[in-house]
């Protein structure tokens, strides 16, 4: 009897402590926990990694500053884990975050194969998941589900911008070189479709070993220059260090001087930094966000640099935005109940530092927003560190992403 009455007192005490005392608890554990699951030691740890965690912390600070005492809670924490780009590790860590660490939403998750695993976990646990770092369109295609949102970019967006514009402006004949695994194959398909649609032709394509342990691409580059008809564009779908190898050797074999331009499928600001703008001058690619695009971006980039010592990649800005939009959604819903928050997010139109003309599509949970066709500046035009590209054109949100796929059944 004594124990029962003590429990009643305890429950009443908890309810009374919150701003709105009522029967139901509005926040599980009376707090919000954001989980950042990404690569913290490998190939993608520069473009996402620990700095994504910093970006999420910035968002939490801004949210608290914005709402002050009206915030749904001041108890907002971050949990983080390294998935090492391995699908099985991602799977285990995601389950641990949702079940044991009390995480309300998982953010980031680069590497397509790992990203798809986490989508399955989110579906099973009925908890939210905003993917930022991965490119596969399957997240909003056959693997889509009620709790998964694809936030920053995808292979369609990259191919549509770069493939179409390069075909129109540089040349119609392409040679495509891609890393032979899920991401590369998806990129090759998306690019081939975009090139054909723009009236171009893929005259040759090769899947290079992945991972390419030798670091050598010369046989592919030589093949490109001997093909008949001769390609006018080399489209490389390699990423990170492999992209660095391809571009170094592209320059070594002087393919640009031989009339073969370069188009890069996926490039982050950190890649341009590694290669130096001189090695990539004139290369066009599609960017989801650029830190020096306008004053608003620049202010964010300055704050980010103060925290991290480096300029943000688009993935960092997207992590900030995603964390902010989730907190806003919880604030508006008055609860962290996943189904209620999803209802509030679906169809919502958003404008913030990352999302311009953004809209969270209800049909497939693709977050659409303006994308940018960017070109690497010649070395002479680089006036400050990290300011490596100029934005040629803004691709409006409605054109940047594909229409909802028929494969997606929520």
């Amino acid at each position, binding site marked *: 009897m004594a124990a029962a009455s003590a429990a009643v007192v305890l429950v009443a005490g908890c309810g009374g402590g919150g701003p709105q005392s009522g029967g139901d608890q509005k926040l599980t554990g009376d707090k919000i926990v954001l989980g950042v699951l990404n690569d913290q*030691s*490998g*190939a993608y*740890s*520069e473009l996402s990694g620990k700095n994504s965690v910093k970006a999420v912390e910035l968002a939490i600070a801004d949210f608290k500053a914005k709402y002050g005492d009206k915030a749904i809670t001041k108890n907002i924490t971050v949990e983080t884990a390294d998935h090492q780009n391995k699908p099985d590790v991602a799977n285990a860590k995601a389950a641990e975050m949702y079940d044991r660490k009390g995480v309300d939403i998982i953010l980031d998750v680069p590497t397509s194969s790992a990203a798809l695993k986490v989508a399955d976990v989110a579906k099973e646990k009925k908890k939210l998941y905003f993917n930022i770092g991965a490119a596969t369109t399957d997240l909003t295609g056959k693997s889509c589900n009620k709790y998964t949102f694809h936030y920053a970019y995808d292979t369609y967006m990259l191919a549509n911008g770069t493939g179409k514009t390069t075909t129109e402006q540089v040349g119609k004949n392409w040679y495509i070189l891609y890393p*032979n695994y899920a991401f590369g194959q998806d990129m090759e398909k998306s690019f081939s479709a975009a090139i054909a649609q723009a009236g171009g032709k893929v005259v040759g394509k*090769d*899947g290079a*070993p992945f*991972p*390419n*342990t*030798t*670091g*050598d691409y*010369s*046989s*592919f580059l*030589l*093949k490109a220059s*001997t093909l008949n008809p001769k390609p006018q564009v080399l489209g490389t779908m390699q990423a*990170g*260090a*492999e992209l*660095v*190898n391809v571009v*170094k*050797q592209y320059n*070594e*074999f*002087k393919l640009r001087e031989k009339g073969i331009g370069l188009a890069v499928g996926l490039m982050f600001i*950190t*890649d341009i*930094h*590694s*290669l*130096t703008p*001189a*090695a990539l001058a004139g290369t066009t690619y599609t960017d989801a966000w650029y830190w020096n695009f306008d004053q608003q971006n620049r202010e964010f980039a300055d704050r980010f640099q103060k925290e991290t010592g480096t300029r943000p990649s688009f993935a960092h800005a997207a992590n900030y935005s995603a964390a902010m939009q989730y907190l806003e959604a919880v604030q508006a819903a008055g609860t962290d109940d996943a189904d209620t928050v999803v209802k509030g997010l679906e169809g919502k139109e958003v404008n913030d530092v990352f999302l311009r003309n953004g809209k969270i599509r209800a049909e497939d949970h693709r977050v659409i927003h303006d994308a940018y066709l960017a070109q690497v500046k010649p070395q002479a035009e680089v006036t400050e560190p990290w300011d490596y590209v100029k934005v040629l054109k803004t691709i409006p949100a409605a054109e940047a992403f594909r229409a909802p796929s028929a494969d997606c059944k929520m």
Partner: protein
Amino acid sequence: MTGFLQNTFNGLVSGAFYALLALGLAVIFGMLRVVNFAHGAFYMLGAFGAYVLLTEAGVPFWAALVIMPLGLGLLGMALERAIIHRLTRLDPLYNFLLTFGLTLILQDLVKSRYGVQSSPYATPSALSGSVDFGLFDFPTYRVFILGFTVLLCVAVWWVLSRTRIGMVVRAATERPELTPAFGIDVGRWVTPVFGFGIGLAGLAGVLAAPMRAVNPLMGADLIIVVFAVVVIGGLGSIFGSVAAGFGIGLVQAWGEAYLSDFPIVSQTIVFIVMAVVLLWRPAGLFGREEAPA
């Protein structure tokens, strides 16, 4: 025909790197019976050292080509004295694990200081053009690598076959149990030979910096192929490692060029060759069958 010649040339350039690395592994294994797993890490340090020398001290490529192999060779000798020689009496597995651990430490030290993104390193301006061979032209830098490596291999061959040090190394490699019986003090040559092997890895790293992505994992990716090369050539066989190095470079380049419709074959061709060689000659192409103890 032009395409074939170009691919052949390329294969030889890739092979030059395998040969330099495999040669170092072979002399180290021959003298110390140590399978040096850290070889890839020293290759990485060579490339990173060149980058750091250039960006922090303005030291050009040519100076780095001398400084890094010497510096890393000395570091290698210090490591051999400090730790590796303590384990050589034990099962070879101990040194294998030790050098593997060393690799992880070196990689993570570089990673914690410079991150995982690749560091920029430009081709030295004197070598940035291309050479016209009539039928085709080829990047000057690659021609340089090939010429330099061939010269180096010839020099090593000369030292091994014409000098007293070379005689000791060959004797110790080929008849490790018999050499000391002739009153030859093998021990005093162990440390310099280890340093020499490491120096070669560092040299390969400097040579790779202008044409490969310079990052902490560059050696870890390459070393697996180099181990395959050493096994194909015959573990401990000095000539075998060089020949297999160039040979595998060629096989790989031809495979990528002419078997690109069968990516599964072209991606695994090194290991297919290794399996076939081991079935046919278990000691490798130029290796000596171990006599039963």
